[in-house]
């Protein structure tokens, strides 16, 4: 058996042998360079740009450092991890439903998480003086997880997902959860109404370091948790029976994917509101680029999601300066037409 030393090394660093993200160096480099440059723009360029000429004076430097540390850096980190998390949650849900159109926003997981968060914001005041961010996150998680399980039960029978049923059930759940949220708002007092409305619009701005670090931690851990399952996802999308016969039983896998993706979506929703379509657009573009192998799709989607949300947030901040576009609105403007195109494309495939 002939083998070069390079091949031996390639095998050693690659747990799944024949396909490795590490062998796609130029793709990683391209995404990395884009991410670094967009991050640079996000951190340093805006209408209140750095005045490079005055950097020499100590008080200007202090002023800039304060802005950077207290506002821009947490916002940048939040955009990165939320973008990566939503994209990875999209990949995971698409594997679970065995369909590239599954997306946290479309199937109603995000709106359920939002309903959970609003209900604790409004009703929680009856028990606690002040509702803290982790209580909001917990409520969002419980509702998000329940709804993931519910939709899966509803739309999947004998290991086959009925796509139309999945999307229509998503429409119904989005309507129901939207109505529930409105109902809660109508019983809320004025202070709550103000804070909830502000939160519902969704923004990456003005979050303290503690919640930002907590959400980032959740995103990183959940992504690593799903990364362990990439090979299982590859087998799982071939069908329940085939996956089992290939040595990948599905029971624990489904529960893990549901819990981890609900965790990512709900922690994002709890902090920055509903940002749709990231989990749809990013994995789809990545699949067009590298194919459908989850060992490549998952890590590249994570980087791609971070890249997309950092750029979108930068645009949201600078496009209409001094106004700031809500990031959820911007993503919907881009994502909804994209979703329509994907739908038409699939429809074309069904007809032939």
């Amino acid at each position: 058996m002939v083998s070069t030393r390079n091949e031996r090394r390639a095998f050693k660093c690659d747990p799944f042998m024949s396909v490795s993200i590490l062998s796609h160096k130029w793709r990683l480099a391209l995404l990395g360079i884009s991410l670094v440059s967009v991050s640079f723009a996000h951190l340093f360029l805006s209408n209140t740009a750095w005045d490079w000429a005055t950097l020499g004076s100590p008080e200007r430097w202090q002023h800039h450092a304060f802005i950077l540390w207290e506002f821009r850096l947490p916002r940048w980190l939040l955009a990165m991890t939320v973008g990566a998390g939503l994209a990875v949650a999209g990949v995971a849900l698409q594997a679970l439903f065995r369909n590239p159109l599954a997306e946290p926003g479309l199937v109603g997981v995000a709106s359920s998480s939002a309903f959970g968060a609003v209900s604790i914001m409004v009703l929680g005041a009856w028990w606690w003086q002040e509702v803290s961010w982790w209580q909001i996150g917990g409520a969002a998680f419980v509702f998000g997880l329940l709804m993931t399980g519910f939709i899966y039960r509803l739309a999947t029978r004998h290991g086959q997902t009925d796509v139309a049923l999945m999307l229509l059930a998503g429409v119904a759940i989005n309507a129901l959860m939207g109505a529930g949220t409105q109902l809660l708002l109508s019983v809320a007092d004025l202070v709550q109404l103000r804070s909830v409305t502000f939160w519902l619009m969704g923004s990456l701005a003005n979050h303290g370091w503690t919640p930002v670090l907590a959400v980032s931690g959740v995103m990183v851990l959940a992504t690593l948790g799903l990364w362990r399952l990439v090979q299982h996802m590859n087998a799982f999308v071939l069908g329940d029976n085939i996956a089992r016969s290939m040595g990948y039983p599905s029971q624990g896998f489904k529960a893990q994917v549901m819990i981890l993706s609900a965790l990512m979506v709900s922690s994002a929703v709890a902090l920055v509101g509903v940002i749709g379509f990231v989990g749809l657009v990013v994995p789809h573009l990545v699949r067009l680029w590298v194919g459908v192998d989850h060992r490549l799709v998952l890590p590249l989607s994570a980087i791609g999601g971070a890249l997309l949300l950092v750029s979108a947030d930068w645009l949201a901040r600078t496009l209409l300066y001094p106004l700031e576009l809500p990031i959820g609105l911007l993503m919907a403007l881009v994502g909804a037409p994209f979703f329509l195109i994907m739908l038409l494309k699939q429809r074309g495939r069904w007809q032939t």
Partner: protein
Amino acid sequence: MKTLACRNLGVQRGAALLLDGVNADFLPERISVILGQNGAGKSTLLQALAKNQALSAGEILWHGQPLVQWSWSDLAKMRALVEQQTPLPFAFSVRQLVSLGLEVQRAEMGPSGPLLPAAFQGYLQEILRVCDLLALSERSVLTLSGGELKRAHLARALAQIWPLDASGQFHGKWLLLDEWNVALDVHHQQCFAVLLRQWCAQGLGVIMVLHDLPLAMQLADEVLLLKQGRVLAQGTAAEIWQPLLLQEALQTRLEAFTHADGSTLFLPKL
């Protein structure tokens, strides 16, 4: 002896008994064909052998040990399954699909430790060649015709149990096929039938569900006749290919055609 044995097997779904008191033995190095009408429980039995079907009674002995005691990963290296129809929603290339099968064996590869990427690609190429998929290897599975997709799935299953040791023997390996010939053109049916024979001679055990009676008669070493979830008869081909028995199992009138060498084929009488 490395056989598969069903002992008093029962499978219940709702109120319906899909399998009832099934006793059957499957031997290695043989092609065993399961025949019966629609709803006779053929696919259920095949899925039960693959550990994909919960049993309501009885047990399956896999190489002498109860099937439930085998781990999924051990089973994956011993047997592969091809289902009737498995729609794929994601655009895997044919090469990717087949390599997913081959990767099942990644832990214990080659005569000298884990398989190296070059050898892996070599085996992959060999399997693609055997299944006549080289020309299609970079195509997306979404663009394949029904027969081409079935061949890709056959190759994926084959890769899962492809012998990687020097002997090139299939001993202790099993291939479970549910109507593998449907959608395949006659040329590829013939090629694959010849290959199955050849692999059986090298130790492979094949269990297949078939509806195609002439093909079954050409291929089978052992036959199991199922009727309404029960075993009607099991035996060697010579014992089972009796017109009355077959008419009873398949509920059809048959016409016998005798070959010059004395062998007989049955065809449905129109």
